[in-house]
């Protein structure tokens, strides 16, 4: 137990040094000197280590994995405000944990959230990452993401809804329960079973507040209305994150990254063309289209088209295999996800 904490601290120090090296603030020799110095001083660390370390389940945090997830988050394009907020929670959780180790008072941590934004703006991706990060911080047991929607919560007959909702919550314990289009739970008025699902959920939020993060997601306007009509919910979901639509520039960057991940490159002409395609999509149906999911469909379709084209042309080499041309991106524009 004692060792565990020391390892932790060393891990953290290590990461600070490597982080500074990555940013180009210190040279490799400086970094090595610091790292080697640290290891020599291991014995010296002992005296400053707090004695009252409380052993907790999952206390051992793998700072390496945490950093990996943070990197993953940083690599997401756009979403700057959301990232800032998430980093704030992470700092808060870390400090709470260290305060506990020093025997100081710590705030109860309630991290249920509302995600507001159009489809394809990164809500599910962010929820999945948050789950993993919270797990590494020792706040959640497994951090896995369980997705649900109205049909997974609401039953057809009286009495079914509570059971269905409870089952889903049991499944999500230790992780994140992500309810997409949550506002649909409030449609249909007083007699609708959606209300029962909400009540069951609220109760579970109290019962399992240390073991579960519930994220309600949906369109901005609908979610605002939904929360206004359920004052109890609004106060329980203190954290609200706004996912704005990506700009066309960001969408192009996303497309380029997706191609790069799959080892394809865009030639000059297709780079210009993709701007036009994306602008056109955005104009056709602003709310549901022209976001990251549409871009992924576009990318995957282009890869299929390219495969057909190069097979027909019959000139297969490394360059033709990785190049996406303008004609691969053409074709009818998808209107819906």
């Amino acid at each position, binding site marked *: 137990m004692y060792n565990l904490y020391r390892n932790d601290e060393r891990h953290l120090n290590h990461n600070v040094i490597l982080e500074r090296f*990555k940013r*180009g603030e210190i040279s490799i*020799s400086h*970094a*090595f000197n610091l*790292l*080697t110095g640290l290891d020599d001083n291991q014995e010296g660390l002992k005296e400053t280590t707090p004695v009252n370390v409380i052993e907790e389940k999952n206390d051992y945090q793998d700072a*390496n994995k945490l950093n990996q997830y943070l*990197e993953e988050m940083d690599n997401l394009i756009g979403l700057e405000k959301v990232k800032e907020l998430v980093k704030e929670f992470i700092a808060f959780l870390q400090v709470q944990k260290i305060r506990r180790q020093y025997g100081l008072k710590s705030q109860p941590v309630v991290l249920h959230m509302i995600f507001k934004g159009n489809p394809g703006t990164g809500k599910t991706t962010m929820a999945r990452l948050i789950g993993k990060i919270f797990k590494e911080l020792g706040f959640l047991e497994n951090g896995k993401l369980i997705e649900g929607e109205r049909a997974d919560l609401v039953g057809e007959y009286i009495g079914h809804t509570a059971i269905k909702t409870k089952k889903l919550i049991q499944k999500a314990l230790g992780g994140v329960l992500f309810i997409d289009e949550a506002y649909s739970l409030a449609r249909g008025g007083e007699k609708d079973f959606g209300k029962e699902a909400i009540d069951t959920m609220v109760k579970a939020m109290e019962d399992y507040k240390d073991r579960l993060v519930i994220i309600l997601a949906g369109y901005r306007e609908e979610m605002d209305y939904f929360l206004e009509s359920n004052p109890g919910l609004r106060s329980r979901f203190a954290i609200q994150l706004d996912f704005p639509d990506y700009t066309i520039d960001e969408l192009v960057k996303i497309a380029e990254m997706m191609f790069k*991940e799959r080892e394809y490159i865009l030639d000059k002409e297709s780079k210009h063309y993709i701007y036009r395609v994306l602008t056109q999509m955005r104009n056709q149906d602003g709310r549901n289209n022209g976001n990251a999911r549409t871009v992924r469909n576009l990318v995957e379709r282009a890869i299929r088209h390219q495969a057909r084209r190069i097979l027909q042309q019959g000139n297969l080499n490394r360059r033709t295999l990785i190049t996406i041309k303008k004609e691969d991106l053409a074709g009818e524009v998808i209107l819906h996800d």
Partner: protein
Amino acid sequence: MTECLVTGMPNVGKTCFVINFAEYMGLKELKFYIRQLAGYTSVRRYSPEDARNELISEESNFTREIQSVKLEIPSGKVFKELEIIDSCGLSEGIHPDAEIRLAMAQTIRLIRESNLILHMIDLTNISKEEEDILLPLDRMIMNYASLEKNYAILANKIDLHSAKENLKILRENFISKKIIPISALYWLGFQEVKRLVLNYV
């Protein structure tokens, strides 16, 4: 799974060693697991010839990603996995390319986490005239990596002129360290490397 990291300065022959050693261990097709900077792992398949053509270069810092091959080692009735990790060469100063700095930082982190460190030193870099027979960075890698118990030096380019003499100097200076002379290019000394890594599987 046992993780074995091959580290060292740029252009000492890390990638060449990993490919040739994997072939020596009997792999017909090399599956390279590449740890992308974005955090996921992708796989590339090569025949040993293609791998040599594509991945090895005289350019320094040609390997920018952490890539690894997995070997299955028979142990009794089961197979155990050995992952040989090829890493980004560590070079002096502050590298101007942020991607390379990131890859170097990953490499340094792996020095701590791997089960076995193979520190590859170019024998032609050994110099009797200087104050330290090692280059400063090689010295630092050694100081840091040999804090871990499982550390060995692969003295590469034994086939070159003057290498034999330098090997002698190296051995005299580091009597307590495990030193294996190899030629990554001509497959020399692989038997002893095999014996060493099998100890850790």
